[in-house]
C-alpha cells in the first residue's frame, strides 16, 4: 500500500488568485421570446385588462386555469373561454427564506397556489401572498388578487402584485 500513498497539496484561494490554477469562463448569451399562442395569449391580454380567464373542456367539463387549447386528460380541443373571479382559496404554500438566487432573507416570500373561484377544484394560479403575517397563512385561506394600477400592467403574470387575505 505504501507505494500508492502520495503527499498531497490542497488548493488555496491564493493559487486561484495568482493564476496557478487555469480555467475558462464564458457567459452564455441565451435570449428567447416565446410565442404565447392562442390560450396563453388570451390569458395575458385579460390580465392586462385586470381579469382572469379560463377554458372549459366540452368533454369532461373541467374549467381550467391557466387556459389551454386542449384538455390533457381527454385530449380534445377546447375553444370555450370562461371568465373567472380574481378571488380564491390557498391550496398550498411555503414560507421561503431564500431568494431565487439563494440569498437569505429575514421576511419570507410566500409562494402559494390559489384555487381560483369559478375554476374546477384543484385549478389555480401560482403566485405570491402579501399583506399577511406569514404565521397566519393556512391552507384553505380565502384570498383576493391585488392588481397593479391599469397603466402599469403589461400583460404578464406580474400584473397581479400578490394575493391578500379576504
Amino acid at each position, binding site marked *: 500500500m505504501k507505494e500508492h500513498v502520495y503527499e498531497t497539496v490542497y488548493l488555496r484561494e491564493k493559487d486561484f488568485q495568482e493564476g496557478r490554477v487555469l480555467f*475558462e469562463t*464564458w457567459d*452564455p*448569451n*441565451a*435570449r*428567447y*421570446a*416565446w*410565442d*404565447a*399562442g*392562442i*390560450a*396563453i*395569449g388570451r390569458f395575458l391580454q385579460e390580465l392586462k385588462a385586470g381579469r382572469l380567464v379560463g377554458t372549459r373542456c366540452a368533454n369532461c367539463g373541467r374549467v381550467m386555469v391557466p387556459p*389551454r*387549447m*386542449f384538455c*390533457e*386528460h*381527454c*385530449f380534445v*380541443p377546447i375553444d370555450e373561454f370562461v371568465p373567472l373571479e380574481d378571488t380564491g382559496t390557498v391550496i398550498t404554500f411555503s414560507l421561503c427564506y431564500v431568494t431565487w438566487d439563494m440569498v437569505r432573507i429575514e421576511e419570507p416570500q410566500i409562494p402559494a397556489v390559489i384555487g381560483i373561484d369559478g375554476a374546477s377544484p384543484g385549478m389555480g394560479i401560482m403566485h405570491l401572498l402579501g399583506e399577511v403575517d406569514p404565521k397566519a397563512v393556512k391552507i384553505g385561506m380565502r384570498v383576493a388578487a391585488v392588481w397593479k394600477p391599469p397603466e402599469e400592467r403589461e400583460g404578464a403574470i406580474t400584473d397581479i402584485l400578490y394575493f391578500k387575505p379576504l
Partner: protein
Amino acid sequence: MIREVAIVGVGWSPFRSITPDLSYKEMMYEAAVRAYEDAGIDPRRDVDSFVTVAEDFNEGTSIFDEYVPDQLGALHRPVQTITGDGIHGIAAAVMQILTGQFDVVVVEAHSKASNVLTLPHILAYAMDPVFNRPLAAHPYFIAGMEMRRYLAETGTPLEACAQVVVKNRANALRNPLAGYGADLTIDDVLASEPIAEPLTRLACADHADGAVVMVLASGETARALTDRPIWVRGIGWANDTFWLESRPWGQARYAYLAGQMAYSTAGIKSPRTEIDFAEIDDTFAYKELQHLEALGLCKPGEAGAWTLEGGTELEGEFPVNPSGGSLGEGHLLDCTGLARVLEVVLQLRGEAGPRQIEDAEVGLAFAWRGVPTTSGAAVILSN
C-alpha cells in the same frame, strides 16, 4: 430485426419561418392530433410509450421533459425526452418495440427556432469551451472548411453544390409543408453573399418552425391498425470524433457508419439499386453531395456530376430530397430528421401529391445534427 416495426401514423404542423399564432405546445398538439387521426388511435388508451427529442438550449427551458406530456396525450403515461435528432427518437421507439414490452410508441420533435433570439450564440455554445470557443468565429466556418476540403479531395465544382440548392428549393415549391420554395439559378446561389467561403448564404438552410409526430407499432398491431403500414427495415446511427483538430474533413465518416449499420439491419447489399429515393441532410448544400457518397449511393467524388446531370432530380433515376430538404423546407433543429422521415413515409404511401415519385418502394432518410457535430442517423423504410 427480431420483431417487425412499422410507422402507422404521421402528423405535422407546417414548416414556416415564423409561427406567431401558435405556442410550441399548440404546435405539438396540432401535429399529434393529425398523427393519431392518421393512425386511427386514441393516445389516452392505445399508446404504450412516448419519446420526444428536444434540446434544452433550443427550448430555453431547463429539464424540458416536464413540458412534453400534456400536448401529446401522454399525461400519466411513460414518457422520455432525449437529445439528438428526430431519427434518434425513431431509434429509441424501435428499440422499445423490439423489447416486446411496447406495441405502440409515439415519437415527437419540433422546432421553435424563431423564438430563440440569439440562435447563433446558442450554436456557438456547442463549441469546445477551451480550444475553439475563445476564437469567437461563427460556427459556420466549420462548414466552410469542410466544404473546401470536400471540394478539393473530390474535384467537385462549386456549380454542383449550387445545383443542390436550385433542385431542393424547386422541389419545395411542390410541397405545401415547405417554407422556402423558390425558383433559383446556379448563378443566384454562387452570387449570394459569402458566409464562410466557399459557402454562400443561399447554400445554407434557413431555420423554420414546425413539429412532426409519428406513431410506430409492432407488426401485428400495425396490420390491425392500417392496410398501408410503412415498415422500418433498418436503422443506424454513429458519431465521429468531436475534435475539429483531427477530423476526416473531406468525408462524412459518421454518415458512412450510420448507413452501414442501417443497411446491415435491412440486409441491403447494393443501396443504389435496392433503394428508390432518399431524403438526406442538406443543412449546407455540399452536405447532400458528401452524404450521398458516404452513404454509398454513388462513388466517392461522383455526387456532383450526378447532380449536375439531373440524376437526383424529382424525375431523375434516384430522386434526392423530393420534399425540398432542409434547404427547401427550412432547418427544423431537432426535428430535422423527422421531416426527412415524414417525406419518405408520404412518398411510400403515394401521398406526395405533385412531387410523387412513381413506384417508390424503398426509401432512405438520413439526418445530421449540424455543426459542430459529427452525429448522424439513418433509417430505411419500405411499403
